[in-house]
Each structure stands twice: as structure tokens, then as C-alpha cells.
């Protein structure tokens, strides 16, 4: 494909070109439509590679090592991939390899969590549970409260928990911190967290998110105010499903895996199902639709068209493709 007289485009994609070489490449791209096509084709190849590897690994049922380290050690000096590892809803590993790797990762995290909590959730260790802000364990003795909804099993950077009712400053939280109904888990623009419910269900909360946990007699609830999360919900007790709450869209989760995304500014919200079945309802008119694996629903205010029945999920393509079990056109 690439002849000697042409730039080595792999070097461009590997970040090996010097600034001068990139400028020279730009000049050639301006003049040569063939080179532009070559660049796009190679870009397509490089972009497809992780998804194709995931698909082949799954097809061959190969064991793949899962990197469960949420945060790598110090950022390395070189290379374009040397950024801090932060869970992102669109990260290749977390998105494309979901069916194998992320599920395994979540199970592993849940397993670690359950192993460490064989009977019930122990009180958090003061040195670990809360750092930075006034520790929960140092707070005035509260009235007897309901058991914690669960605890953070992984955090990356500055993750905070806001008390019920939004009183006081959100407190910095570390691995092991308990989170109670009414509290909000907050991740910053470059941080992430993983939360495990007491029943082993998990939420992988991505950067820039705010998730309010709640509980009523009808069961637990969660409201993603902004950001994104992946949920792996264990089978819930009959008649007490986990409820996904929100101004525009609500859902009942009996036990499934799904991704929830919300944009605070536009109020756009979406829910995509990876596994199982979710009944989603639009708050405005009560319209309900059942989403199966691979289905995706999105709502936004003043938006006359609600994607409630699509077999496509463009913001979540690979997972759709994998879970829907249908070939990608």
C-alpha cells in the first residue's frame, strides 16, 4: 500500500512523526487525493482493530487477561498512550471489549468486594474511607440510619460523595467508602469510580458524572444527573426492582446490564441495554417501551422524536453489535 516515495502512514498513526514530518504529510495530503484515501483506509483499520480483536477473542472463546488496575502507577514518559488511565464511557477497552473484559472486571471487583464483606458491610476504616474533607467517621453521631447502599470499590483521582439534601461540601472518598441512600457520587472531569451495591451489583461511573442513590419501600433507585455509567445489576427481589429515575426517562431494572448517559446542559439522556430486558418509560406522556439487548433509547426536552425502538445504538455501537448478536451492516 505504501510505497517508498510516500510517507509511512503507520508512523503517523503511531505518533512517531516529528512535527516537520506531519507538516510535510499535510502538504502531500493537500495535493494527493489517493494519499488521503490511503490515510482514511489505514485510519479505519487502526480504529477497527480493538473491536475486531474483541470479536475474534469472543468468537474463539479465548481467555484474555483483564487489566483490572483502575489507575496505573506514575504516568510514563513516552508515547501517546501514556495518559493516566481513567474510565471513560468511550474508552476502547471499556467500550469495545465489554462483553468479555468489562463483565469479567466487574465480576472480579464484585468478587473482591464480596470476599471482603462475607457477612455485612463493615464500618469503613477511617484512614481509607474518607480523605481530604472532614471524614464521615468524624462527623457528629447521626441518628440510626439505614444500612449503606454499598461502597466504592475503585476510585481514580478525586471522587466525592455529597450528603443527602446537598448539605455541606461533598467529601472526598476513597476505596471502601460507604455510600448511603440520598447521597450523590461525584466524579470530576478526569476521575472515575466503581461502586458495588451490597448485593454485588456494580456501577462503573465515568468521568464528569453525578449519580444520586436512593431507596424507597419499592426498592433502590439511581438518578444519573450528568455523565455516564455502566451498570451490572444482579437479579433484584421480586416486586422491588432497581429504578432508574430522571426528569424525562425512567426505567425498572430487574437484573441486567445497561449503560446510562446524561448531559446536564441539554438534558439529553440515553439508556442502552447490554444484557437482559429493561422497560423504559417517557415521563412526559407515559409512553413505555421494552428494550432488549442491543436496544437503545434516548430522550431530550422539546425533542419530538424519541428513539425508543431502534435496533441501533450509535453511541454504543460495539456493545450493540456484540449483544444484539446481529451482523453489523
Amino acid at each position, binding site marked *: 500500500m505504501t510505497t517508498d516515495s510516500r510517507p509511512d502512514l503507520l508512523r503517523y498513526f503511531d505518533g512517531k512523526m516529528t512535527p516537520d514530518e506531519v507538516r510535510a504529510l499535510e502538504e502531500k495530503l493537500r495535493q494527493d487525493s489517493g494519499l488521503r484515501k490511503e490515510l482514511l483506509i489505514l485510519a479505519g483499520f487502526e480504529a477497527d482493530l480493538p473491536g475486531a480483536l474483541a470479536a475474534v477473542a469472543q468468537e474463539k472463546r479465548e481467555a484474555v487477561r483483564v487489566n483490572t488496575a483502575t489507575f496505573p502507577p506514575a504516568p510514563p514518559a513516552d508515547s501517546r498512550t501514556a495518559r493516566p488511565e481513567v474510565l471513560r464511557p468511550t474508552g476502547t477497552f471499556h467500550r469495545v471489549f465489554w462483553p468479555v473484559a468489562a463483565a469479567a472486571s466487574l465480576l472480579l471487583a464484585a468478587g473482591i468486594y464480596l470476599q471482603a464483606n462475607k457477612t455485612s458491610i463493615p464500618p469503613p476504616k477511617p484512614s481509607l474511607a474518607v480523605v481530604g474533607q472532614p471524614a464521615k467517621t468524624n462527623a457528629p453521631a447521626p441518628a440510626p440510619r439505614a444500612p449503606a447502599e454499598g461502597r466504592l470499590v475503585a476510585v481514580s483521582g478525586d471522587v466525592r460523595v455529597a450528603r443527602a439534601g446537598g448539605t455541606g461540601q461533598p467529601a472526598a472518598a476513597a476505596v471502601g467508602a460507604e455510600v448511603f441512600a440520598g447521597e450523590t457520587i461525584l466524579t470530576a472531569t478526569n476521575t472515575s469510580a466503581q461502586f458495588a451495591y451490597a448485593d454485588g451489583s456494580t456501577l462503573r461511573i465515568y468521568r464528569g458524572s453525578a449519580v444520586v442513590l436512593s431507596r424507597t419501600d419499592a426498592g433502590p433507585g439511581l438518578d444519573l444527573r450528568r455523565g455516564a455509567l455502566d451498570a451490572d445489576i444482579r437479579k433484584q427481589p421480586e416486586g422491588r426492582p432497581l429504578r432508574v429515575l430522571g426528569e424525562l426517562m425512567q426505567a425498572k431494572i430487574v437484573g441486567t446490564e445497561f449503560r446510562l448517559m446524561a448531559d446536564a446542559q441539554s438534558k439529553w439522556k440515553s439508556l442502552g441495554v447490554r444484557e437482559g430486558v429493561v422497560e423504559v418509560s417517557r415521563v412526559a406522556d407515559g409512553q413505555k417501551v421494552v428494550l432488549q439487548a442491543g436496544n437503545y433509547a434516548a430522550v431530550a426536552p422539546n425533542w419530538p422524536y424519541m428513539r425508543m425502538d431502534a435496533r441501533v445504538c*450509535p453511541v454504543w455501537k460495539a456493545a450493540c453489535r456484540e449483544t444484539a448478536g446481529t451482523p453489523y451492516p
Partner: protein
Amino acid sequence: MDSLDKGSVNDIILRHVISEDAIVRAYVYSATRGHRDTEDVIQKVWQVVCLKIGEYDTSRSFRAWVLGITRLQILKWRQAQARSREIILAPDVLDLLADTAETAREELSLRSQYLKECLSRMPLNGRRLLQMRYFEELRIAAIAEDLKRSVAAIEMALVRLRRALRACIEEKLAQTLGGGL
């Protein structure tokens, strides 16, 4: 566009959105050169497409409309990278790439399909190395340490594996085109 009802919107999305994804992905990756940034931009693109679908003029090319949105999202991403040391392609080059992208969809789709077939035929060792780098997103230094090889050797092996895959794809593509498709 004033008469686009829900049914036709669904129809447009079902018919077109998925089929344009490969080309949008390639276009975005050609600028970002990173999987995570690519996914960030693509996610934003489809979000904007969903929100602005009511503004789409059905008399015009849906692909061109989507690529226009993609171009804007790439430019926004480019602005956000202003402090980065990475050299990012100039806006006029990105425009030219968008024009080129309009004509490359079928080939990209075929290549995507052949990539999986070629990966399936690749010996496990090679595939494993690619998995470590592109799947598990391990740094090359970490892979080298793990496999007790030098960084340069791993880099070279990855280049060779990708070239072998591309050659395999080219071969399949030539067979397909030669077969009259």
C-alpha cells in the same frame, strides 16, 4: 425541513446511521490517532445527530450532513487539544479528508469485515500481542517487560503484525473485486 415525521426519522436512522459509522470512525481516527479520543468525538457526533435530526434536509446527502457534523466535532476536539504537543492535521486538510471520506464507505465496510477474518487466521501469539497492545491498552514498555523483550522488538513486531493484517485484507479485497463484486 418541515415535514419530517417520527416514522421517517426512524427510517433515516435505521437506514443510514449505522452504515455511516465506519466512515465517521475512520475520519475521526485520522485526526485523533487515539482510540479514546476517537470514541469521545464519535459519541458527541451521534449525540448531535440525534438531537438535530429534525434539521436534516432529506433532499441532501445524509452522509455529507453527518460528515459535516463530524468535522465540527473534530475541530472542537482540536481546539481542546491546543496545549497538547501533538501535531494535529490542519482544518483545511480535515475538510479535504471529509470530502474523500464521502466516497470510501463501501471499501471501509469490506475492509472491516476482512480484518476480522484475517485476525481469525492469525497465529495466537501474534493475536495475543495485538490484544495486549490494542485491547488491554498496555503500554509497549509494559508488554516488553512482560514478555522479556526489548521495547524496539515489540514495536517492530506490532508494525509487522499490522502490515501482515493489511496485506491479508488487500488480498481478500483483490479476490472480492476480481470476483466481480
